[in-house]
């Protein structure tokens, strides 16, 4: 068996003392050691973005990121972005309302990317949203409603009430 090394990992605000293989990816540790299955394996080559997590606030592909590199950094997965009280955060709610979720496999990665974008740029243009999504693949939506969802989330987070709820009955 491969030699294992100790790793102190900070994930979603919790500290974990782990033994990990030197070649284990962060995605493997999150999914198969910590049972955080929100980040998905989609390609293993950093091309689809389904595995994205926030590392020190930046959206990073966990499938090509060695777990040992995450030492001393703050890792946040989709689970860590979800409010504990059973509600959704504004970006999650916007994805639901805008119909941006179909099969849902790319969704956690999309929301991680959107979170990183809106934290550094609360008023992104459509081009900036599209640019931020360059490393996230979706096969169901043609990205149309994903872009709309991020616009909607940004508008709501700014308190801009122009956008009606599409699900209003």
């Amino acid at each position, binding site marked *: 068996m491969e030699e294992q090394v100790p790793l102190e990992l900070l994930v979603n605000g919790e500290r974990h003392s782990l033994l990990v293989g030197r070649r284990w990816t962060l995605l493997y540790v999150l999914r198969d050691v910590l049972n955080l299955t929100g980040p998905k394996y989609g390609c293993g080559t950093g091309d689809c973005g389904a595995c994205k997590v926030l590392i020190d606030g930046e959206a990073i592909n966990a499938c090509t990121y060695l777990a040992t590199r995450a030492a001393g950094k703050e890792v946040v997965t989709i689970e860590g972005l979800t409010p504990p009280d059973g509600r959704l955060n504004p970006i999650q709610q916007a994805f639901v309302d805008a119909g941006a979720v*179909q*099969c849902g496999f790319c969704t956690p990665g999309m929301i991680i990317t959107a979170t990183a974008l809106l934290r550094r740029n609360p008023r992104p243009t459509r081009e900036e949203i599209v640019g931020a999504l360059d490393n996230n693949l979706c096969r169901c939506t043609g990205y149309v409603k994903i872009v709309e969802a991020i616009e909607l989330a940004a508008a709501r987070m700014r308190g801009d009430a122009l956008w009606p709820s599409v699900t209003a009955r």
Partner: protein
Amino acid sequence: MAERYREIKAMEQSLAQSGLRYVGRPRPNREAATKVTGEARYIDDLRFPGMLHAKLLLSPHAHARIVRIDTSEAERLPGVRAIVHYFNSPHNAYNSAARFYGDNSPFIMPETEYIFDEVVRFVGDRVAAVAADDEFIAEEAVRRIRVEYEPLPAVFDELKALEPGAPQANPYGLDGGNICGGRLAYGGKEGRPATEQEVLDVIESADLVVEDTFRVSKVHHGYIEPVCHIAHYSRDGKLTVWTPSQSVFCFRDVIAQALGLPHSRVRVIKGLVGGGFGGKLEVMHEPVVALLAMRTNRHVKLRLTRKEVFLATRSRHAGVLTVRSGVNRDGKLQGTLMRSILNTGAYAGAGPNTIGAQSGKLFILYDAPAMFYDGVAVYTNTPPAGAMRGYGCPQVMIARETHTDHICRLLKMDPVEFRLRNVLQPHAVNCRGQNVHNARIADCIRAGAEAFGWTERRRAAEATHGGRLRRGVGVGLGVHGAGWYPVYQDLTTVIIRLHDDGTAVLLTGTHDLGTGSRTILAQIAGEILTIDPDLIEVIEADTDVTPLDLGAQASRTTYVAGNATIMAARNLRQQLLDEASRMWKLPAEALTLADGHVVARDDPSRRASIAEVVASAQRGSAGGPQRELLAAESFESLDAIDSYAADFCEVEVDTETGQTRVLDFLAVHNSGRVINPLLFEGQVHGGIHMGLGYALSEEMEIDPQTGEVKNTSFKKYRMFRAGDMPRIRVLTIEEPEEAGPFGGKSIGECATDPVAGCVVNAVSHAIGAELRQIPLTPARVLAALRQRSA
């Protein structure tokens, strides 16, 4: 954003006028909240105590006989629990694409596959599989398996495979050659069957005869969730398989057949599907994982890597299509003959059935006195093709629609005008004598041409044709069914049970792939039972729990399962009225359901909630027997219902780099009444995405020497990214279809069918060249430009 706001307001107004409470209203996918939080569990996210991990050994040869397999080195590795291969596994033939039990016609569904075969027939074919304590051990064990192969001659190209003396890619090929199943050839003239010669006579007697040959590439579904299965075999002899299936009952039958088990001993549970598009409609590696589970009595999981997905799953059929038409000077189409050769790869799978599906599409779009279709599926030593959104139809449409534009150029006739002159009108009878029902394709074309500004934009684009960046405007049509009537049985069953608080659970064998079928079935049931759809749980696709369904395929769910839901809900509505009639000693005809209550039509004070009526039935308190209020109904499709679409787009071609950008896209759909506009639009958007890649960037490149797929990553297999997408608008012609649920038809596949033809026509317009092969890579565009100036 303001435009979107106005659209939503307009939609709300029109809904208020319709009298419908739930049907026709936008409503997000009901499980969306679990998907945005990461709470949703796909198969790869399931954890079972003691679960083993499986890994496949895939063939490095395109065609070879396995002489010897030595697993001794692999077995020595601690943590290896089972190794299976040809020499220690059952040999029961099956067809991975079987559509129902006993579906084994040698013409349509030849049984050419085994769990492991003595011969491997493509690079990526299964040789062996290992189950081990973790995936690293399984991977190492696979590396240690020694296999001695005897290489055999191979063929990769569908045309070469048809040449005399070509290597036989699969021994089931007809007459020692490579034709899979059989040749399908039939036609119609003036409402009755016609021979090829009769149709050719009509074509040749027209003023102008045009023939074009179009080549389409092999493309992959590109679902983001890699294929993943879990199986468990218990000591009391029950096999349970969790898989992202589009058709659990067919999977059960195939797995049972491969392993020699009775159906009652096999349970297939549909997991969440992370993208299907037909790619999860056929049994993949479930029989292998099941076999490993039977050898170990443990849960065994197999999850493919992305590279393995490209090598060892299904894809869209590559092929060559020739279209020959006769047309008169006045622009009236007289006849069309289409010949199609599809590359089905190493195994039959859905090959001949895809030919069958293709053939029907020829006859239900354009109106002409005579038409003929002639097609074959061909074996080659490449990864098997299979079902993919459109199921042969995108190939037909791209060949047909580019051919149509070629005719227009020769006639100097506007493509919109030509199509309006020649498409089938509502309730027309085509040359085979079929009624096309409420086919609103002409309305789609008219509405689209106006909304897109067809004439002005064509003209404006032509003003750029002297420069480096040239614009083109194109149109492309599409059509797709809503089920497979009358090809074979097309039924589904829905059960609805009322709970004692007036809420409900709906059990259906249908498969929600993220498309929202659970959501729309709840809307339909809710509309009839006047129960909020959020209070109707929908349980789907589990062979031991839900009633029978034949799969999320053929764009059938809305029409077939929607109608079954209507039948079950109406049945239950009547039971509620009957029970209330007993309670109040009033005739049932004097009662109705409104807003979650049974009420007397003439006396609104006579009013009982559904919960009260259910309680009365369960207690027998009104004098009837104690019973649960539930309804089970099977719906049998008895109509060939078709949805139609007209797509319009504008492209810009850089004549120096050969790069094409799609600037603007409009899709106009006639799917009858739209049950849920939010989900409907999502289907169209995704269909356009898939069609754009098909036209411009996607292609599984097969190495001409080795037969291996060369581009096995998303870096090299180029699907459109967000920045590649054009602006998209969707319009609907919501003329209701009489037989459809609330007038609805279908959308899934019709969203993709017209797209690539529309794009190629726009590029042809931009650069003034005939284009006969997709994808239109920069190299192909530059070659077309060079050929034009030569």
